[in-house]
């Protein structure tokens, strides 16, 4: 997905009438401007340009239906599976936080993990990150068992935690150098300057982390997470607290990472984010995985679900499905 902040992206899909109206106007304009569709090639040119215009006008290229086709192309054979979570259970004392969770993420796939507060998202992520020992189950990252070879697994993993978590006194440059070193990447001064230029933090290179804006902190955090070109990138609510511009910019960067072959697992509360960037999404609640689908299929599948219909206002949205599946009660 390219970074297109100026584009209007309507929440709803184009309806039949407005699409027909748009095509009619365009055809009329083109026909009056040249010999009316003299050859098959000319007709094809016109049709193609109209198709492009419609796709751009409604930003359909990055919408779920198109993403669904990308997801459909992802073959889950053994060679393409980057993350394999098998029957994962996490407990804190007597309290079960995650129970029997299984899912896979393919190469170059953006996978969203959704769930209300306390549903088990962070516990699942922590088990993948190797921060907590699961009670049972296994996590394989690019074929490496996270429990048996944590160091090797962590070397393949890029992580952006939810909270800003760098030493506040360190400067942007010092943080970049520190984390590059921790991942075994030796950065020269030129390389570092170039990297900071690329993420728009060159002017802030000598600023302490605490003096950066939220968007700048997030950009640095993402840069640090991918400094070693990880196989899998974990993003824990990456856009929370960001303004729309920074959010769009981040989506652009996430898409760029995927285009380079990286797989991404992100947790979020934003349905807009899920629809914009995720190929597939899993909904987790009370520690159990409820469903795993493409965002579009999720809507299709639960469109007529009475619990979903009850909360929907008009056309069923992903948020309606989410609330329908996880309930309307506010979680602490």
């Amino acid at each position, binding site marked *: 997905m390219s970074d297109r902040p100026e584009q209007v992206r309507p929440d709803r899909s184009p309806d039949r009438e407005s699409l027909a109206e748009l095509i009619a106007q365009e055809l009329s304009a083109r026909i009056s401007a040249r010999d009316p569709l003299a050859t098959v090639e000319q007709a094809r040119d016109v049709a193609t340009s109209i198709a492009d215009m419609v796709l751009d006008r409604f930003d359909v290229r990055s919408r779920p239906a198109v993403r669904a086709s990308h997801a459909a192309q992802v073959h889950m054979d053994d060679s393409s599976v980057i993350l394999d979570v098998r029957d994962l259970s996490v407990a804190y004392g007597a309290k079960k936080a995650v129970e029997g969770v299984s899912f896979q993420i393919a190469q170059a796939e953006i996978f969203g993990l959704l769930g209300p507060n306390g549903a088990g998202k962070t516990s699942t992520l922590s088990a993948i*990150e190797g921060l907590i020992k699961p009670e049972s189950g296994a996590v394989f990252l690019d074929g490496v068992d996270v429990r048996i070879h944590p160091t090797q697994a962590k*070397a393949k993993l890029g992580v952006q935690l939810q909270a800003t978590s760098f*030493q506040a006194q360190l400067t942007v440059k010092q943080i970049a150098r520190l984390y590059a*070193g921790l991942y075994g990447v030796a950065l020269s001064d030129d390389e570092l300057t170039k990297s900071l230029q690329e993420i728009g933090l060159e002017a802030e290179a000598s600023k302490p982390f605490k003096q950066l804006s939220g968007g700048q902190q997030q950009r640095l955090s993402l840069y640090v997470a991918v400094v070693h070109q990880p196989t899998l990138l974990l993003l824990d609510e990456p856009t929370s607290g960001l303004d729309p511009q920074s959010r769009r910019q981040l989506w652009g960067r996430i898409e760029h990472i995927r285009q380079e*072959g990286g797989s991404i697992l992100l947790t979020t509360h934003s349905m807009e984010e899920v629809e914009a960037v995720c190929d597939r999404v899993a909904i987790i609640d009370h520690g159990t995985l409820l469903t795993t689908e493409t965002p579009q299929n999720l809507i299709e599948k639960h469109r007529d679900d009475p619990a979903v219909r009850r909360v929907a206002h008009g056309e069923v949205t992903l948020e309606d499905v989410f609330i329908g599946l996880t309930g309307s009660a506010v979680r602490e």
Partner: protein
Amino acid sequence: MNSHQPAAGPPLRLVLSSLLRADFAVLLKNRRALLISTILPLFILFTTNSDKATKHFGGALFVIGLAIAYGLVSASILGYALAVARDREQGVFQRLRVTPAPTWTIMTSRLAIQALANLLNTIIVVIVGTRLHHISLSLGQYCLVLAVSVIGGAVFLSIGQALVGLMKSADSVNAASRVLVIGLILLGTFGQSGALGATWESIAQWSPVGAVMTLFAAVLHLSSWYSHDTLTLLACGGYIVVFAAIGVRWFQWDAR
């Protein structure tokens, strides 16, 4: 993106040097804490400079030992423990732990930088103290003073580690470390002087501050090294083992 790099972790040397560089930068930026841990011992040296006061504390060597010990106490307990507790609360450790860096390197780097700060602090105090009291030390004695500084620093750092091991919240660590530092300082100052009676004098002598003070005084006046000093050295070793064991056993990387 999917680089399929070798499965091994990053080179340990690069990991350690990166951590040490960052922790050193943080130490330099915490100027206030650095200043306090230097000013406190210097204040003690200047206020006990009179003959009467020096005699009251058992002589010039004990006064220098006292000043060094207080510097180490404030830097290691107030400075180190509080910094660790705050970083833990802000998730700094969790961020470091998701990297392939072995967890022991994270703490080792912090302790090493704090030990270095303690050494520099000790050198300053010894130079100022010996000038004030007109004492000349041999190169060997300077080396011994630095060795005792490492031992004394380890005693107080292990106490600091035990504090952050037993308490999760930074506020609790802050409150407890202040009370502890004041208690240790009062015990060292009044207990050692005998003002509180023989029992308290004995307790003070074997307290962490008293033991470290005794060691400093012993190496500053080598000709009078007694078996009591050897026992004091063993006591310091005991403090290090016990408090470090508590600090490591109960330390949690996450404050939640």
